[in-house]
């Protein structure tokens, strides 16, 4: 699916968080959204998936979702959002229970999603028994199980330590390779954006507007941490954001 945001604006009371934001994400491509803290990144993501109604503007999806897709707009959350009283398999099965799948098809989907994320042996474990990285793998498996058309990822690696983060990046690349899901990836981590995305949307300080849009150029599968192109993009992002970030940090939020 191709996703288009048109002239989005949103405010919480007196706080204007987004102001006239328009962009498009091509079918199967990964758009990273970066910006200083409080620039409305999370609000934008909620609007894109229909969890918040924008004050102004609209989100348009073009193209058909795959036939076996159960939840076209699917989130991966920063804090994983796993149900602690359900096992790994139970968490992955949760979104499938909302649909008209018979028990066997549901089990098959869960099995498949767990296998793709390397979680087969943890099917019966509870989230608290798993490391943060494994918990986020469960979050990814849950998203995979519904065969999403659009993946909306809200800082999916931010709660993890840096080594785990590097490992999970490989999982994300595989996820995109296998699902071809159009992805909007919100992060404050510039190297994550430079390593993982096809395009990077840089937002200004609140109220969030488009500051720049940077295509990374080299296909994501061919990039490695520390590659010149990655470092170069990271450097450009930082030069765009440095003063904004400094100003945002000095702001008093109500």
């Amino acid at each position, binding site marked *: 699916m191709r996703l288009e945001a048109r002239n989005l604006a949103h405010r919480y009371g007196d706080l204007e968080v987004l102001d006239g934001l328009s962009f498009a994400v091509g079918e199967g491509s990964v758009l990273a959204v970066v910006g200083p803290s409080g620039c409305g990144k999370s609000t934008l993501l909620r609007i894109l998936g229909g969890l918040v109604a924008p004050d102004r503007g609209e989100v348009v999806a073009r193209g058909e979702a795959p036939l076996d897709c159960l939840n076209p707009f699917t989130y991966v959350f920063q*804090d994983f*959002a796993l149900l602690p009283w359900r096992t790994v398999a139970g968490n992955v099965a949760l979104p499938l229970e909302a649909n008209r799948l018979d028990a066997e098809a549901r089990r098959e989907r869960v099995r498949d999603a767990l296998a793709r994320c390397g979680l087969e042996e943890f099917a019966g474990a509870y989230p608290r028994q798993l490391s943060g990285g494994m918990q986020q793998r469960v979050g990814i498996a849950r998203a995979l199980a519904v065969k999403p058309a659009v993946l909306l990822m809200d800082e999916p690696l931010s709660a993890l330590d840096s080594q785990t983060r590097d490992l999970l990046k490989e999982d994300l690349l595989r996820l995109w390779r296998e699902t071809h899901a159009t992805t909007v990836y919100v992060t404050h981590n510039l190297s994550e954006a430079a390593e993982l995305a096809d395009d990077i949307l840089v937002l200004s300080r609140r109220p969030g507007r488009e500051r720049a849009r940077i295509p990374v150029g080299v296909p994501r599968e061919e990039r490695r941490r520390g590659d010149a192109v990655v470092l170069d993009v990271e450097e450009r992002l930082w030069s765009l954001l440095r003063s904004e970030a400094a100003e945002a940090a000095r702001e008093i939020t109500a």
Partner: protein
Amino acid sequence: MSERASAARSAAATGREASGDAGPRAVAVRGRGFEPRLRPAVAWLALAALLALWQAGSAAGLIGELTLPSPARIARSLGELATGGDLWGHLAASAGRIAGGFLLGFSTGVVAGLLIGIFTLSRSIGVPVVAALFPIPKIALLPLFILWFGIGEWSKVATIAFGVFFPTAVATYGAVDAVPRNLVRMGQSFGLAPAAITAKILLPGALPGILSGARIASSIALILVVAAEMIGAERGIGALILTSGHLMQTDRLLAGVVVLSVLGLVVAWAIGALERRLLRWR
């Protein structure tokens, strides 16, 4: 002063002169934080010692037999009540009232708490009503309930149900409020219907809080059943205690108190077992 003393001590320990302060010194351990532990052997020993002291005091005549009968005397009285007396009849009457009142008050309390926790309208109505009625000592309403429902079982059951309802409702909506909103949003983002979100996210997420509310509610039920039985009942542990008091049978009276204590422990244990079963995931 003490610093210098310990410096001297460690200097002595390392066999150095205390002339300079550059010598190597072992860092003294200053504590690991307070870590009180419960040692079961000590607990049982202390309990046994208390009973032995009490028994010895009674045997020596320091404690009047009528004022406070000895543990042995209370135990004998309890045995008589259990074998020849009507302990089981009294117990059944009390347990039946507790069960009826608790089930009624708990189930309605959970439903009310869920409504307050989910809907704006019911929250706007429910919170002030609960806040206004919660502080009433529910036993004060027994006379009114007797007028409404008669002196029989229903007035007592209603008093207990009323007393159980409020702490349950408060615990439930507090527990629903404490379920992370992100989990609810997750459910919505996967297209779960509101009923499914309630059943699969809010209710299980609130269960720990609801069960600790059940603990509080059960102890309130125990207080209320005794109080209600003292006001107007022929059977029940409360009635047994009251009539024993009138007859100055303090041993029977205390036997009744022992039964209440055991009843309370059994209920607490049952809720604990339920928690261990339902909250294994914690």
